[in-house]
């Protein structure tokens, strides 16, 4: 089991954003998370990637506990150094790409492997060029982010995350900032990764994509997992009323 999130609770001031979320991701699985805005999907991803701290529950990667709830009910994380190891297990692709604008594409891909994972320049560059080739943008290695289209930038962002060789890759609405034409090229890359059995969790509004590519779909609303299962079950035969209501919107 690559990732286990058990009974996750998270609140921001008075607002309870995650109310008791549990889900697992096994090696090679692609899990899609769908749901309305404010349902907690992004927060769940941010908790999984340690950008946010949970208030209760348990996070385990590869069977090792990164955070758990002690007897007094407080969430306790491992030490800073140990957390560094957990961070190396996960990669995150942001909706807004968040590429480093002062680095060219190649440097965006090689800087972290070299300075965080202490890989050699040769190894980092070889990995980077291979990834850029897979993404179809090897010829843009010397370009700067501002010179690329949104779809290209997001593919660089995916390559940057993959260059760190994570166990699991998270996507936070990777195509929401892209127009329909550019969305296709990014979805194609994610589909390719799925075929290569990359473990992934994708928060998305692209329903046909979620249905086609995932092994499992989670529907979240108001901080809870309302329904989860095989994409064909959830999309074609939703059990819960809220799920039906949500999916109805996409049938227009």
């Amino acid at each position, binding site marked *: 089991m690559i990732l286990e999130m058990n009974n996750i609770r998270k609140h921001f001031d008075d607002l309870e954003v995650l109310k008791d979320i549990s889900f697992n991701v096994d090696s090679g699985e692609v899990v899609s998370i769908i749901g309305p805005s404010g349902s907690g999907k992004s927060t769940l991803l941010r908790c999984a*990637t*340690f950008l946010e701290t949970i208030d209760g529950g348990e996070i385990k990667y590869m069977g090792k506990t990164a955070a758990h709830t002690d007897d007094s009910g407080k969430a306790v994380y491992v030490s800073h150094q140990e957390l560094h190891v957990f961070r190396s297990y996960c*990669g995150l692709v*942001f909706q*807004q790409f968040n590429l*480093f*604008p*002062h680095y060219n594409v190649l440097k965006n891909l090689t800087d972290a492997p070299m*300075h965080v994972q202490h890989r050699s320049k040769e190894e980092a560059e070889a990995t980077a060029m291979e990834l850029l080739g897979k993404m179809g943008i090897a010829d843009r290695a010397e370009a*700067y982010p501002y010179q690329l289209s949104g779809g290209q930038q997001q593919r660089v962002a995916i390559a940057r995350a993959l260059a760190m060789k994570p166990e699991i890759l998270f996507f936070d609405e990777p195509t929401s900032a892209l127009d329909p034409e550019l969305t296709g090229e990014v979805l194609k890359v994610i589909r390719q990764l799925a075929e290569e059995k990359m473990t992934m969790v994708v928060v998305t509004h692209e329903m046909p994509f979620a249905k086609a590519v995932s092994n499992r779909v989670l529907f979240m609303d108001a901080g809870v997992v309302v329904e989860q299962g095989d994409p064909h079950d959830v999309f074609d035969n939703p059990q819960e009323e809220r799920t039906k209501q949500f999916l109805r919107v996409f049938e227009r």
Partner: protein
Amino acid sequence: MNFDTMFSTMMPGMLRSFGIFTLTLVGSLPLGMIVALLKKSRFAIVRGFISVYISVIRGTPLMLQLLVWYFGPFYLFRMNIGDWRFPALILGFVVNYAAYFAEIYRGGIESIPVGQYEAAEVLGYSKTQTFMRIILPQVIKRIMPSVTNEIITLVKDTSLAFTLAYSEVFSLAKQISASQTSFTPFVIAGVFYFVANYVVAFIMSRIEKALDYYK
């Protein structure tokens, strides 16, 4: 006194003006960064102290601050330091300009989108690495226009050393003009400041162009 004599008499003054300018930049550019970072301290007392410092220094004339630095040790603390004129001058300038640079740095740092910090965090960069490799290079590019303004102001502010009877170019211009009843020394001083600022503007513009390799 003919023009050449006036000019050569004023040369040491020009060098002293340049000295104040250089030492102030060497001192206040790093000090300003330290102040900007201290302003984000976890300790409220540190943040409070820095806020007061910035407020007082930016809220009072530099001329007045130079006088406080010079006369303060003796009249406030009964300390007799000896050759205190030049140290007081430089301390006054450095502490003053550091306050302005601190706010420029703060503005630059706060303008960096939080996504940059988050991307760096997920990739595993340490806080120091994030600041030095990701944030600071972007901040430098963003603050260049404001920094240029401050440097141009500094060139002219060096004339305030006149307050402490330090013979930089403006003081000498005043002295020679009085003793020779001529306006020429002021013209020489004026041209000196103008040329100095022209060089500054040229250098800053080249730096901005060099940083323009990305948007």
